[in-house]
């Protein structure tokens, strides 16, 4: 409850879902898992994932 007695504003459902799905760490986690999986099953895909990691490491740089 807020001080005015009304319930505190909560983020909408879409926003609640959107925030974790667009977290900057999420691609790193996905690419990390993909790198492990690809290293086991597809060396070629590992190269692509490795490239993705290198590209993503430049986040924030233009």
């Amino acid at each position, binding site marked *: 409850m807020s001080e005015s007695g009304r319930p505190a504003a909560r983020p909408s459902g879409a926003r609640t879902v959107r925030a974790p799905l667009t*977290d900057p760490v999420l691609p790193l986690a996905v690419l990390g898992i993909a790198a492990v999986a690809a290293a086991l099953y597809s060396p070629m895909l590992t190269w692509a994932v490795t*490239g993705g990691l*290198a590209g993503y*490491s430049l986040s*924030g*740089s233009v």
Partner: protein
Amino acid sequence: MFTAGLLAGGVLTAGVLWLLSGLFTPLPAGVRQGLIVAVALLAALRDAGKVSLRLPQNARQIPQDVLRRHLARGALQFGFELGTGVRTYVSASAPYALAVAVLLSGGSYVPALAAGLGFGAGRALTPALRRLSGDGERWDGLLARRLSGTTVLCSVLIAAAACAIFP
């Protein structure tokens, strides 16, 4: 168009590195693998601030007027220049580790192509996620707090991948 440019730029740089990779094929595969892993670990240490090492980079920003002249063509050019990785600042060490990996990989062009496309796609993730987040400034803040750990982990993962994929 921007993403297409990123992918094309990544493929171009990877292609050039692949062409040069022939010079290193006389080295035994084990030596090349060791060098790739060592460089990736060095990259991680550099990003962690444990090692001070100046690396070559084009210390400039891509001019914004590229986008003003013609939006679609400008987005393609802007993406292409970013995708090459040699037309602007390189703020992390992982791309150097990837470049060395492609340079020392030898053999077929397909791994280099995959790495180049992956690099472009990886660069495209940042603006895509920022846009999808719906709050670019908040997203920038989150990224700024996690950027250091992200860059280190990228290099560590590249080193780990190099241990596994080298022929």
